[in-house]
Structures are given as C-alpha cells and as structure tokens.
C-alpha cells in the first residue's frame, strides 16, 4: 500500500510576541511543530489527539498549506512540497477538503448555502449551471434536502451546519479530508449521525480522513490509527486498538485515564508548559509520573514497539509500580514509519 499522505520532519514556526518580549531575550519565534512525521493510506482514518496547544490543529493547517512550513516535506498522492510553491499547493488543494472547528464561523453569513458548498468549484472555474447541479447532489450526499440550497447560515442548526461543511469539503472529490474537531459542540445523538455520515462517505469513496480531536471516546470508534501529540511532537502512534490496549507513553496513558477508565492512574497534574520554554530533554518530563534523570537530560528517540506502533519515551510501557524503571535498549537506527 503506497501512502496517500506522507509528512516528513515537518517544522512550523510562528513569529513570537512583541518587541518587548524580544528585548527580554526571548526567542524570535516559537516552534509549534517540531519535526512531525506521519503517513496516511488511502481510505484510512488517522486520529490526531492531544490537549489544546499540542499542535494538532496547526499540523492539519500545515498539511493543507494554510500555515507555511519552516522545513520538512509533505507529499500527497505522489506530489511533494518542501516550501511555499504556488503551483503545487493549487494541485494539493484540489485533493484536500477542510472541515473547520466552528462550522458557523466557516460559512460566510451573507452567502447562501449552495454558494458556500460549491465555492471550491467556483474557485476552480466551474460554471453557474454546474454549480447549481452539484449543490443539489452534495446536499443529498450529506442528507440535507434541496431546499437548504437557498438558505443562509443563520437559518440552520449546528448539526446542519456541520453537514454543510462536510458537503463543501467533498465538493472537489478530494482524496483527503482534514476534519478539525468535527463533533465539537454537538449533542450525542447528532454526533452519532455525523460520524455515521463520515463513515458512509468513506466506505463509498475511499477518502482518507485526518481526524483531529481531543475526544478519545470518539476516536476509538472512528479511527484506524491514532497519533498522540504533545507540545508539537507526535509522542506515540499506533493502531487504535493497540493504543487503547497497550498505551506505551505515559502521556497517552494519562489521556486515557482522563476518560475515566477504572484503575488508571490519576489525571495529569500541572499545566502544559509554554512552547516558548519547551522543557529540555523529554518535553513531557515536567508532568510525567515516571520522569527520571535521563528524561531531563536527553530527548527520547523514536522506538518501534511493534508493527505501526512507535513511541518517543525512554521508558515505554513502564508503570508507576515499577520500582526502578529501566531503559529499553534503543534500536540501532531510529527508523521512520514505513507502512
């Protein structure tokens, strides 16, 4: 299986703060994504989970070309980008559909829904008649009746707005849909309807999903693989079942316990450190119940724990009960994921 999407060593930096901050000797920019690599196959759903500030939204935006990258490469369907080259991004954008966190904000309040849904077609030069025809088709695909075409965003409910953004994301028949918190703010039954819709669309069209969420209960049902992010790095990635059955990184375990699994360690204490003052060594050591001297000194390399299971931790799978956690021998070559 060749990967549809391959992200290699992606680094994203934002210019930081004010002149005052710089005079105080703070760094000029903040590294939001620090060497992220991932792959996504056709028809696959990858869940991107982590707390707010972990960089998961930035990663989605960078993959869609909405945030310039400092270094690294993104390859989608054979074409790759290493910087901001317009020609490539135009081609890329045809293949990527976006669903934003807040569906109401993602719809122009003064545009009728039909125009919003077919905007990607208009950008690519489709005519009026074709847009009208496709608007009806797309509305039907997401289970909305044709009379929605003439409505304005303020005349529909949150769940319906979600469906409209799904329709727009699918307008160009993309190979990849990046869905940022697609069920945030939805009632449980409506959430179920939307997830079933996304699954049905995937079953019918083999589209891949990058599913950005902090809701692990949802991710468990709808993703094939999960990548856990912390402070701009992927700290663990594995098949979804494996993540839930055998979480290797202490941060992953903390996230799972936060979802109220009985017998799990207590939730994390303390705050996510500021990106401006990323801890030395392992970025998680300030909150890690297992942190040892090594963790404060050295950033852990990526280890392979099994097929498709990678983790960045000096003491993977160790539990707090282990009297003296001992380091797993590192593999000779920190291999990249090769699905």
């Amino acid at each position, binding site marked *: 299986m060749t990967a549809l999407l391959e992200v290699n060593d992606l680094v994203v930096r934002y210019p930081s703060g004010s002149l005052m901050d710089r005079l105080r000797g703070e760094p000029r920019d903040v590294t939001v994504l620090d060497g992220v690599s991932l792959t996504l196959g056709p028809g696959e759903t990858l869940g991107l989970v982590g707390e707010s500030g972990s960089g998961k939204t930035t990663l989605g935006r960078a993959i869609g070309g909405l945030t310039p990258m400092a270094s690294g490469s993104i390859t989608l369907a054979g074409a790759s980008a290493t910087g901001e080259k317009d020609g490539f991004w135009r081609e890329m954008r045809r293949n990527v559909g976006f669903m934003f966190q807040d569906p109401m904000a993602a719809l122009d309040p003064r545009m009728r829904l039909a125009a919003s849904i077919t905007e990607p077609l208009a950008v690519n030069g489709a005519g009026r008649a074709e847009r009208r025809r496709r608007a009806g088709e797309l509305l039907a695909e997401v289970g909305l009746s044709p009379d929605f075409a003439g409505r304005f965003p303020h005349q529909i409910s949150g769940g319906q707005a979600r469906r409209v953004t799904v329709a727009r994301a699918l307008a160009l028949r993309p190979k990849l849909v990046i869905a940022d918190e697609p069920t945030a703010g939805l009632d449980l039954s409506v*959430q179920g309807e939307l997830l079933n819709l996304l699954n049905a669309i995937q079953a019918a069209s083999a589209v891949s999903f990058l599913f950005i969420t*902090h809701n692990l209960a949802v991710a468990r049902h709808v993703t094939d693989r999960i990548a856990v992010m912390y402070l701009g790095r992927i700290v663990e990635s594995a098949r979804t079942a494996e993540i839930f059955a055998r979480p290797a990184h202490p941060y992953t375990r903390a996230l799972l316990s936060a979802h109220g699994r009985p017998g799990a360690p207590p939730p994390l204490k303390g*705050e996510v450190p500021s990106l401006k003052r990323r801890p030395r060594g392992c970025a998680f050591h300030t909150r890690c119940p297992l942190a040892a001297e090594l963790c404060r000194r050295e950033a852990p390399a990526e280890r392979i724990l099994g097929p498709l299971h990678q983790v960045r931790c000096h003491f993977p799978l160790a539990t707090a009960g282990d009297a003296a956690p001992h380091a797993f021998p590192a593999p000779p070559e920190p291999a990249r994921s090769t699905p």
Partner: protein
Amino acid sequence: MAAIVDLRDVSISYGNVRAVRGITFALERGRVLGLVGESGSGKSSLVSAMLALLPKGASVEGRIALDGRDLYALGERERRALRGREMATVSQDPFTALNPVIRIGRQLVEFQHRLTHLSRGAKRERAREMIARVGISDPAVRMEQYPHQLSGGLRQRVAIAAALLVQPKLLIADEPTTALDATTEAEVIEIIRDMRGEVDGSIILVTHDMGVVGRLCDDVAVMYAGELVESGPVEAVLGHPQHPYTRALLACDPARIETPSRHLPTIPGTVPSPAALPGGCIFSTRCPSVQPVCRVDKPVRIGIGASHAACHFAGAA
C-alpha cells in the same frame, strides 16, 4: 432534611410558546444534581429561571423556592442580593466569565462585595486561600495576573474559586467542561468533586455528558423537549434507565459502547418544536418502543424504585 431547591410545576413561556412545562423536583442539601438534556431540552431556560435571569418577555408559572423562599415572590432587590450571596454560577465559557483588564486578585475580592462584614485585607486573604484550594500553584503570583495569562483550565478553576468565595447555598455549573479538553476536563471535575464540601448547600451541574454525570453527581434529572422525563439517584437512572429517551441517550454515548464500532447509535428524528408538540407522550415521535397509547395519552411521572419516569411502560422493562 430540607430541600435547597424546590421546583413545583414550573413552566416557562416565551410569548405564547411554553418552552418548559410542568417541572417538579426537589434537591436536598449537600446533593449534586446533574441536569441532562440535548439542545432544545429547555435546561438552559430552567437554569435561567432558577437564577431569575430569564430574558424580558419570558414568564414563569409555578413555584421556584430556594431554601424555603419563593424566588418569584421576592422583590428584584432581594433577588439580586440572593444571586450574589446564596446562588453562584460557573459558566460554560471561562473566557468571558472574567474581566480581561482586571487582575485576578482584585476580581476575586470584588466577587465578595456582599460579604460586608469582611475587610478588604481579609477578602484578599480568603481569595488567596481559595485559589490554593482549587489546586492553582503559586496563588500569590496568580493573584497579580490578568485572565489572558491563564490557560482555559486555570481560568475555569479561578471561576470555580470565585463562585465558592461567596459560600453559596446553590452552585450552578453550566456545562463547565465543554470548552475544555479531556485532561483539563478531568481536572476540573476532580476539583468540583473535591470542592463539594465547600458548598454549604447543593450543586446543579448542567451537562450533556453522561460520563460527567456518572463521575460527579448524586442525582440526575433528564429533560427532553421542555419536560422532565426521568429523575432519580445516579445509580438508578444510569444503571436501570426507565424512560426510553434516557436509554437512547445512554446508548448514544461513544464512551459507553464497549466494542469499537463504525456505526454509532443515534436517535432518529428531531426534537419537536415547543410550538408544535405531538399529542400524547412528547417522545412518541422518536421512541423505538412506541405503542398506540403513547400517541394519545400523556404519561404521568410515576415512581419506579428510587427514580421517577414519565413513560407508560416505565417499570415494565
């Protein structure tokens, strides 16, 4: 034991539309109630009515009593005093609850303005203690900071501290964890649980998250389309739900589905609009086990074990 909150046949109308109808329940001192319902269930209206903060044009029928006093028999001044001293709220959005241009410490002192017997210094000291108690490190530093310097989780904790400072008899937390991510949500839940003892009264937690109800609450009240369909102790309602809506809602929660599945359960249909309610049982249009009688007769709430449910077939399953 006396009920802190006592609702008798409370209905709320906006113009000619009765958005909330016939809510009756009592919450005893020291208990935590989870008020559960989806959008359109009327839970926000009910909470606003309990705080006497309904918008103009809304009218309340029935009796809402706080610690034995009928809220709507009081004058506006007394009600306002009540809101400051005996009722406190933690809102959904920790970003709007605090004034962005005033330091945390001063805001926490201001929140205590009804406690006239305390000096400013004493209020400051109480604020500092409370910040430490809700698990915020370096309380002295935090007091000098502005809200934007705090993360969402910290701000929500400050909001909880602010609510607790007035020693309310009733604390209403309106979806306090929806704006937060999983680990922060877990922390905030821990804090509310730890702080239960601080509230010399009761807590009402408005939520649509059954997981939060299970972890935090003693009692639960399930609302649907403006009516109370089921209420009772958490173990009874979550363990043996009597109303089909409660069962459907629990079935929809992805966290409660054991085996991962690509096809998640949903509740077919939509919540009926309060302007066009179905005859008979309000859930009859979407109920999986609907019977002819349900479309004609409106079920009354009956007690089954410790809980109450408004269903013709409650107790039968």
